[in-house]
């Protein structure tokens, strides 16, 4: 099973600036939403990038595994990511 070290650079996906490439560290909670997010490919280790936010600032659109996914900030808050510098 994959594990990723937490670093001080970690933040929630909700606070990831638009356009910054990042990697998922953890998906918190054991509720239906976390399960659905992981089924859609948002699992630890997956690269993600925020594409944009909707006109009223919520929801947000991310790119993961080569496709686009919309989710609300409350959902994004449960996803811990770390920025990838390359």
């Amino acid at each position: 099973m994959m594990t990723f070290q937490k670093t001080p650079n970690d933040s929630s996906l909700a606070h990831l600036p638009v356009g910054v490439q990042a990697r998922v560290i953890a998906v918190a909670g054991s509720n239906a939403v976390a399960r659905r997010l992981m089924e859609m490919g948002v699992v630890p280790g997956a690269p993600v990038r925020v594409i944009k936010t909707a006109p009223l600032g919520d929801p947000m659109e991310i790119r993961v595994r080569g496709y686009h996914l919309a989710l609300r900030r409350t959902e994004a808050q449960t996803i811990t990511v770390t920025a990838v510098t390359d």
Partner: protein
Amino acid sequence: MNTTLESPPPVKDLAGTAEKSRGKRLTIALAGNPNAGKTTLFNTLTGLRQKVANYPGVTVERKEGVWPLVPGGNAHARLIDLPGLYSLDAASIDERIARDVLTGQIAGLPAPDIIVAVVDATNLERNLYLATQLLEYGRPLVIALTMIDLAERRDIEIDVERLAQELGVPVIPVMASQRRGIDALSAAIIELAGNTGVGPGWRLSETAERELSSLAEQAGVKHARHAVLRDLYGEELPADTERRAAVELARARLSEADRNWWQEPLLARYDWIEQVTARCVRQSSNHQRPTATERIDRILTHRIFGPLVLIAVMLLVFQTIFSWASLPMDLIDKGFGTLGELLRNNMSPGLLTDLLVDGIIAGVGGVLVFLPQILLLFFFITILEDTGYMARAAFLMDRLMRGVGLHGKAFMPLLSSFACAIPGIMATRTIENPKDRFATIMIAPFMSCSARLPVYALLIAAFFSTQKVLGFVSVGALMIVSMYMLGIAVAVCVAWVLKHTILKAPPPPLVLEMPPYRVPNLLTVAQAVWSRAWLFVRRAGTVILAISIILWALVTFPRSNATDNPSATAAEVTATDTGAREGTDNTAVNQGEQGRDETGEQIRNSFAGRAGRLIEPLIAPLGFDWKMGIGLISSFAARETLVSTFSIVYNVGPDENEGSPSLIDAVRNARRPDGTPAWTPLVAVSMMVFFVLACQCMSTIAVVRRETNSWRWPLFMVSYMLVLAYVASLITFQGGRLLGFT
């Protein structure tokens, strides 16, 4: 790119294998993610040999068709199209149904001999997640790889042979719209028939595998691995008490070791998928280049342009529905009118003629006249869905919808409800959480549907059409807009109240794929429009037809002594629908006062008239008399019957050879017993307000009953809407009078 499409294998080779399986017809299930091209493939494989129904007890669409595996041969297969799915785990209705189909739990539907997994080549990893779960079912599986041309354009190289090797199942590239790869797909299926599946390629950690095997042992041989996995990791615990205790113990042990124990199968699957794709997929480095979809979305989900485009799209759709549809609607209307006249002129007058012309033809015509609007609306909805714009609409509207506690996905069902609440309510099933879904269903009937239009049209034409405000806006247009706005405003309030009381729940999550934009496939659009329209015609048609016949009987019986002429009520209904919608066509003519009295007497003493007089004290405070009461009663079956009912009640030409007076004039000239006008502009407004808010539609009630699987919700909906309608109408009429309006 290695994805060359094989040329079809010679049919002769297949014949021998097909021969073997002739005794039993193959059942094949088609599964895949939404937007993976499953519908296009299904339509190509089955052509027009398909039927759409529902799974018992739920409104999940059940599509199945016949697939002639070998052209001209007799190895026809039964092809089941599963709903679009991302996973088989979660508790949504679609996913539960898909599981039941795969395990053979649906009555009359054997477990599939072969599963065809539709996998989108441009979105391989996420699409393979479902395929991985399907592998776990241990049935023979074939992967149909779609969108390879798009993948190629995005510089995604897929080694198909290697992929097949890694997965252990045949992988067949198909381009359904061009019929390429179809023969290879049939060949793979015929070869696989009767084999066993390969099972999953991934394992869990040792601890977890140990728990799985001990649970499997306890359950006995018939419990397959996928079922044990589901018991241990599924969201719901098994129903059996003993089993549940064992599973709970196992879960407790696992969670002690790892807080996120439940994520293990999810991670293991993706882990395996990543290993597989790492060996078979090469993506050129310049994939950071924005795709066409991303460029389009720079406008369509733009902070400012996005909402403007959405408003423009909505305006276009509604403008089209109301303006383009009017010509075919008039034609259908005239057609039924002519048919009725033809029958009446060629049949001997009598009850049978009346029933045919007034009951059946008027009833069927009254429904079919809305068909052009419904077809157009479904056409637009299908186009918006198929292009991928629907997801953008939900994305743009989600924040606003959440303001009243609803889901972004509720936007489109509610928008559809402006044409008809039935497809709107059916469309809510994309909303996963039942509470959000029920809240959406409960407010959908407030959207002014097309069946209310004839009512608004009649009353506005009678009382408001000529006046103008500020010199250019007609009061009629203003009135219609106000009615739509009233419905929306009440819906927002009710949604807020429901979400804070009986349907209280945290704000619904939104996890929504934004699919790439695609040019819609015309066959798919036509198919979708046709099947949805047919469902509408059948459902609404049967109810309204029955109600029309009953209503005709209620107005015709018991026969009063004064009238012996059975066609007295008859001529009117023929005039009803024509008179209703385009009342201006007919010119008022003088009519025999004698006949008017006779028919009036007949209606007054009929069952319907007695019912109308019975409720008169109740509706008098709203400004309504007993004749309007008949209309209210009959319109509880379907709103538009109000118009035909008024035709029966008011339109009283005793001699059918004389032109019937226009219904509009009849409404204007209707008098109360004391000689004052029965209708005033204020009464008309009160009536319209009532129609905005009351749930007067049998078909809606039936659909809500089916969607919520209980009588509680539809009964609750009818009662609270009736109370709201009554109170609002009361306030309108009494308040209006206090303010000095008449």
